[in-house]
């Protein structure tokens, strides 16, 4: 093969070499600038700060965290909080979204209209705004902590949702959800459910019409047809876009920083402001999300292969 502009393969090689060269020069340029700037401003670099004491409190987490513990542990607490919100949100949004999506096929006009109205309203308002609204309602418009709304053992107030034990020997809250957690989960669930509803609707609509007619001919009710014939087949179409929605929900949980829920991004933000190590903190956050994204994609792809049609 000759390296010539006249042959297609020669041009290809030249294009690739040029592209690689540009990327490498750009990378070198940015890296050298960063090194120079950091030296100029006396910014220290490296991940050694992770082992120093964090010096800030974290309001909630899977385990207790106090300010003498290290930054690394603070990041882990934040990661745990992200996972907690993401998992709760994914489960609830899937349930609600599937109901709403299936509701679009109801024979009842009112159900159809309500489901599509829900989708339009929640899809077309920015998630951040919805989160801020839920947080405002939960943290400011609810009654004060000492005069909560009660429903059986549940108490709802500005302090969050609490399960109060009223037995004589064990007074106090058995578990509690902070208003930040509730606002974030509620906002993410309601927002993502609108998108999942569209995914489910498109999936069910894509099942060939004959399937529905065949199940009607077999005497299945509409609910039975949906449950045993349409949804299982729609599932194959639904899985890839559903994976995207799960990933979106996980990434969107980073908006926690706006309402003060201590997820991994807020912890990184606090750490960044305290230590000034912007590069390291942002790199950590990006690494965390990249890993979660790749892991989720891997799991869902494996599941997708399992339910895919086995064709020869």
């Amino acid at each position, binding site marked *: 093969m000759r390296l010539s502009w006249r042959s*297609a393969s020669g041009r*290809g090689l030249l*294009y*690739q*070499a040029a*592209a*690689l060269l540009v*990327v490498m020069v750009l990378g070198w340029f*940015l890296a050298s*600038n*960063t090194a*120079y*700037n*950091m030296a*100029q401003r006396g910014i220290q670099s490296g991940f050694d700060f992770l082992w120093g004491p964090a010096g800030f409190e974290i309001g909630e987490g899977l385990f207790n965290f106090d300010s003498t513990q290290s930054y690394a542990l603070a990041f882990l607490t934040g990661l745990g909080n992200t996972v907690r919100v993401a998992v709760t949100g994914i489960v609830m949004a899937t349930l609600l979204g599937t109901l709403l999506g299936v509701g679009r096929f*109801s*024979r*009842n*006009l*009112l*159900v159809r209209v*309500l489901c599509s109205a829900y989708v*339009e*309203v929640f*899809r*077309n*308002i*920015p*998630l*951040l*705004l*919805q989160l*801020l*609204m839920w947080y*405002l*309602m939960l943290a*400011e*418009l609810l009654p004060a902590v000492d005069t909560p709304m009660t429903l059986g053992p549940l108490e709802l107030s500005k302090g969050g949702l609490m399960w109060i034990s009223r037995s004589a020997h064990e007074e106090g809250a058995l578990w509690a959800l902070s208003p930040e957690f509730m606002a974030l989960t509620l906002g993410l669930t309601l927002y993502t459910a609108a998108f999942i509803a569209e995914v489910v609707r498109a999936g069910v609509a894509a099942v060939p019409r004959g399937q529905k007619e065949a199940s009607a001919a077999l*005497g299945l009710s509409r609910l039975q047809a949906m449950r045993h014939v349409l949804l299982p087949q729609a599932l194959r179409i639904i899985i890839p876009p559903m994976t995207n929605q799960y990933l979106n929900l996980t*990434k*969107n949980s*980073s*908006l926690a*920083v*706006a309402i003060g829920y201590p997820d991994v*991004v807020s912890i990184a*933000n606090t750490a*960044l402001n305290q230590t000034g190590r*912007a*590069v390291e903190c*942002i790199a950590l*956050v*990006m690494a965390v*999300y*990249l890993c979660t*994204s*790749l892991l989720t994609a891997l799991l869902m792809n494996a599941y997708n292969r399992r339910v895919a049609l086995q064709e020869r």
Partner: protein
Amino acid sequence: MIPARPAPFTSATWLSAVRQHLFADWNTGLASVVLLLLLGYAGTHLLDWGMLRAQWMPDVAACRADGVGACWGVVAEKYRVILLGRYPLEEQWRPVVASSLLLALLLVSCLRSFWRPWLAVLWLLGLPIYFGLMKGHLWGLSLGLTAVDTDRWGGLPLTLLLSSVSIALALPLAVLVALGRRSELPAIRALCSVYVELVRGVPLISVLFMASFMLPLFLPQGLTIDVLLRVLVGITLFAAAYMAEVVRGGLQAVPRGQVEAAASLGLSWWQTQRHVVLPQALTAVLPGLVNNFIAIFKDTSLVTIVSLYELTGALGLALNSDADWRPFKLEGYVFIALIYFLFCFSISRYSLWVERQLALGNPS
């Protein structure tokens, strides 16, 4: 044995329509009654709060009185700050004129008969005019207006600017990246794939943090870029990765025979893409692209986290420091939610309309 079913409805009065759609059988009838009751309950409460007991005048004392519902006076009092941010009061005609211009440009870009090369020229002329009006000077050239720095820009003009400019810049980039991912050259394909997967794997907020904290470190000493520009670059790079995936879907949908036919006609690779593949691919994915535009429009609200006061941030700016009006923040949120909704909903309806227009053009 399947029981016999009643014959379908044939008459078409509204009563029979109601019966058919709401009370066809016991189950749907029950569901209708329950839903109607719930709707009636929620509806009357909302109507009572939002209209009947609402206070429309910008009067704090009246809003705080007992038994008053929503206080829409907060919008009447604060609409300038909410819509225009911290832009100097006496110069506020400038963002209004500039955004009207931008909106007109956007509307024109929506019409298919204007999808011509000169539309790009129009944008290249329109954007400097927008920036000139907003800043008061252009590339050091004074326009006889008071200079207003970008940190005072805010509200709806900023939202419109961020979304339209990042869409306009991201689209060509996305097409290039998508072509790169489908390329036969392994190095180009790898570079484009890494870029797309990397960006799609991280949340926008981390990209914005990067643009606002890290970009200054990346640049040579003495070169500083305005925070607005940095954020614009961040949103553009983020949006381009998502759009590139949509465009790639379109490229995959173009039948192989088209490329082979183009090759047999003697078209070069670039000619094939430009005249044969891209027109078909972009038409096929236009609805998907418009969905992306809506997502970008909503995502611009995140720049408030890196202290740029677009619509969402401007509301906080208007109310957070004002103890009198702060209790009525919910009404303010409802107001800007309505603005966002109007924009996003009309773009999505536009997408449906374009889809129908294009379907008319290519009967299948």
